[in-house]
């Protein structure tokens, strides 16, 4: 009974998380255009459906119907699997995010999380470090100089920004004392749901946010697809749904990083007054409110991603490397030392 029930509930959670991620990623493309339109004082997509709400569907159909072109000199096998790899690594991270506390069905309390491994943060870092492959293999297999240059830029950028990302997480680990995402989320329910890690780790949060932008290849770090210099970057030769997958992976990545930022630094599913609400209302309802709150936080960060994209211009390549290695890494190390000192002084 135990194993079967576990399998069934995990399958349901996996399917729901998958569908929600894809839906939000699809609607992020719509949201991106609307935000861009708002910032540039335009209207944005408004033809497909009311307020243009069917636009993602129309885009998807357009992508599928286009000719799927493969360059003659390309490495066929690698050219085909690269977009899939991109998508895979973007979606894999969502497995460790706790979307809510627990739901009690028939006396059985089910955590809303695909898997609660006790090394959740390391898992995230490892999957992020694998994100390079889709871009790199895709860029190389296209057999195009622009693609290769884009891929090299993308991978060196990702490797460089993994470092400050890992270092900023180390400082967070010192505060939380655990690597499990569910425990980190649960710890932040102190002070009636207001004890968020951002209070302890403001510098770490800023570092992590910058690195998340760089890892998702978003402006101001979108050098890999810099149109003025590289045509289209690593996906120059891609067309049809393969290109769609690359672009889609970026939005999935954005959603997942936003959820991780909300969970690690902004209390996850906790909201002010959560503990009193748990005493007043039925357990499941409050949990669902928590899930909604996490979604709102996540959507805010997705909006932030778009806001920055349409506000700040792109870095030059040397500026990017300077920022990564000469600014962020030393700041992250200083943050670790300060955090260690403070933990040593005030805790225990």
């Amino acid at each position, binding site marked *: 009974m135990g194993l079967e029930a576990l399998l069934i509930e995990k399958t349901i959670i996996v399917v729901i998380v998958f569908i929600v991620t894809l839906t939000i990623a699809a609607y992020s493309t719509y949201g991106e255009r609307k935000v861009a339109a708002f910032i540039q004082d335009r209207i944005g997509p408004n033809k497909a459906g009311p307020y243009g709400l069917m636009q993602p569907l129309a885009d998807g159909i357009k992508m599928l119907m286009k000719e799927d072109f493969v360059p003659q000199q390309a490495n066929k096998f690698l050219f085909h699997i690269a977009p899939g790899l991109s998508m895979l690594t973007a979606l894999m991270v969502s497995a460790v995010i706790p979307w809510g506390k627990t739901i009690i069905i028939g006396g059985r309390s089910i955590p809303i999380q695909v898997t609660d491994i*006790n090394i959740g943060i390391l*898992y995230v870092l490892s999957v992020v*470090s694998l994100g*390079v492959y889709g871009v790199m293999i895709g860029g190389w297999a296209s057999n195009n100089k622009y693609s290769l240059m884009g891929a090299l830029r993308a991978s060196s950028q990702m490797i460089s920004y*993994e470092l400050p990302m890992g270092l900023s997480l180390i400082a967070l680990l010192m505060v939380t004392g655990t690597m499990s995402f569910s425990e980190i989320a649960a710890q932040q329910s102190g002070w009636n749901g207001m004890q968020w890690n951002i209070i302890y780790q403001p510098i770490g949060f800023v570092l992590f946010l910058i690195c998340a932008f760089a890892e998702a290849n978003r402006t101001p770090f979108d050098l890999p697809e810099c149109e003025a210099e590289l045509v289209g970057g690593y996906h120059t030769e891609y067309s049809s749904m393969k290109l769609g997958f690359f672009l889609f992976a970026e939005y999935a990545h954005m959603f997942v990083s936003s959820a991780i930022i909300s969970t690690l630094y902004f209390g996850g599913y906790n909201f002010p007054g959560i503990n009193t609400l748990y005493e007043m209302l039925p357990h499941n309802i409050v949990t669902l409110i928590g899930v909604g709150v996490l979604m709102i936080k996540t959507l805010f960060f997705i909006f932030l991603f778009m806001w920055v994209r349409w506000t700040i211009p792109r870095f030059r390549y040397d500026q990017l490397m300077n920022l990564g290695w000469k600014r962020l890494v030393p700041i992250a190390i200083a943050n670790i030392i300060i955090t260690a000192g403070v933990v040593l002084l005030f805790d225990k």
Partner: protein
Amino acid sequence: MELNEIIFYILAFIGIVAALVTVTANNPIYSILGLIVCFFTISAHFVLMNAQFLAMVNIIVYAGAIIVLFLFVVMMMNLNDLPRVKTHILWKVAGVVGAGGLMLILVASLKVSGNLVQAQPVANIGLIHTLGKVLMNEFLVPFIMTSILLNSAMIGAVLLTKREKRIQK
């Protein structure tokens, strides 16, 4: 068969096939991809043995960093179609004898060792808390020594890449 055992054999099969691809592939890119798959199966074996920390670090360090470096080199040098290395027949015979001897030893040790697949993994041995305590108590000095060694190697590498100042006449 236990579930653990089935997973073990599937992983072992994939791992060996990937390792063979790594050695035999003509295209260096396929070699590297084979190596990545091989590292993944090794990490999965670590998870089966309840050493989750090791599994993740294996992926971060090897699949995430070192293999990316290999890929960089292969892509930049464009080592697409290397000519097959021609070896003397004597070396081939020597290779076969050496590999056969190694296989003999492996098979013999497998026969002696008894049950290969642990049905119940050793609890807590590879978890991060246990590992941290062991590293910071029993093996503190070697741990610090290793980190100093790694650090000096890194600084050395940075120094080597620095441009020398031009000697003034």
